[in-house]
């Protein structure tokens, strides 16, 4: 993904979904989530926006957290999906699929003829 303001704008809309999706497979701490999002191809993701998103999803009850002591470095706060978060992910994923299908269809048809 190129580093353009456009992708950053798009990311903002789907960051909740992306963060929930990352955490649905495995719990993770702040920077771990950033790393997994980047590995998935969202290289432009801004760290601070991920941390802010984590905090908001936590405040909304979609995430729980627990602290894991670390020998080499600072203790880490891990986030996990709550049941609420899991159902929110399912609902948001459905919205995203519909939305992205519609946009893809539009973009594809614009490319033809």
């Amino acid at each position: 993904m190129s580093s353009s303001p456009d992708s950053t704008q798009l990311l903002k809309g789907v960051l909740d979904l992306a963060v929930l999706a990352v955490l649905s497979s495995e719990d993770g701490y702040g920077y771990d989530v950033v790393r997994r999002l980047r590995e998935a191809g969202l290289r432009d993701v801004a760290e601070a926006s991920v941390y802010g998103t984590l905090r908001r999803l936590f405040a909304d009850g979609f995430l729980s957290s627990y602290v894991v002591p670390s020998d080499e470095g600072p203790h880490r706060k891990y986030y996990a999906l709550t049941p609420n978060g899991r159902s929110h992910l399912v609902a948001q994923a459905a919205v995203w699929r519909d939305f992205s299908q519609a946009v893809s269809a539009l973009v594809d048809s614009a490319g033809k003829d």
Partner: protein
Amino acid sequence: MSLENVSPEIARFASDVRRALAHLPADQIAELTGDLEANVTASVADGSPIPDVDAYVAELLSAAGLGLPSPVPHNNKKTFVEAVAVLRRAVRGLEPMWWLLRAFLFVVIIGELTTNFDVSSAGTRYIAVAGSQWLGIFLLGASIVGSVWWGRSRFVLPSWAEIGLAAVLVLFGALTIRDELRVAELAASSLGYGDHGGQCAGLGYDSMGRIGLPTDPVPDLVGLTSEEADQAIVMWGRGVVMLNVTFPGPTLPMVSEDAASDMVVSRQSDPYLVAGSCPYVSIDVELDGHTSLSTTTSTIDPSMTSSTVVDATTTSLLVTETTSPLGRVPTQTTAPGTPSTIAPSPVPGVPTTTQREG
């Protein structure tokens, strides 16, 4: 969160972020920044730079659904805070220079405490430790490494202790350097071109306080008793030349001056200059061959430079200044037109510069 493993830069960044979030309730700040150090440390370890504080805070707040800090109504306060931040950054930029300076001052003070006063080393003593310049250079290198390490480490003293230590270093270092400069100046002036004014004027000195050596040859003292030698030198030296009689050394340690007056000079040195508020010329003599010559003349360094001034009006020889890393020794030369009758220069082959006064 444990802070021991956080680098100072990241700790600084984190405190800047927390300060920028100060408009939020404390629990929200804690929630937003609880993992800040851990996250940034991991990110930096992955090769990312430390983020810009303002952009970071803006992203954090907007993603968290929290408002940006409302424009501060007291604009003056904000300007003041910004000015302080700029000043802090500027001071931080000067920090490495302070690390070097404090290492230097440390060595200066250690040198002052361990090195005895010595005119010949005046001005070079700053980094001599226990009298050794090499030890000083070694300690300076070690101090710089230590100082920079300390400056970059997370080991931070309480600020009062740090300020106190800095004040002590600067104060004592400055005093030492000032004394050193004063000694160097004194040493230079007492050997130099008449900085004494009228203080030393009189017999053997000209009105500028410079030494005028007789144009007559140095008397041959060998074979004379020390008393006769003394008289010969008084006659010849017009008050500025002294005999440095070394008593027969360890074999007859208790010999008195009266007894020595009957002893015969077996060797004599060339004249050399002795520094002081009124410098004078000295000649070492050895009595009866029991003693070795004073070590003063053995410290002549061939690399020294020397200069001799000839007074145009009296054509008397003026021994002026010789400088050497090890000592100061005069060189004689004859005034123009005067037959060369004076003993050869103590340092053969050393070029002498001759200049006319006025």
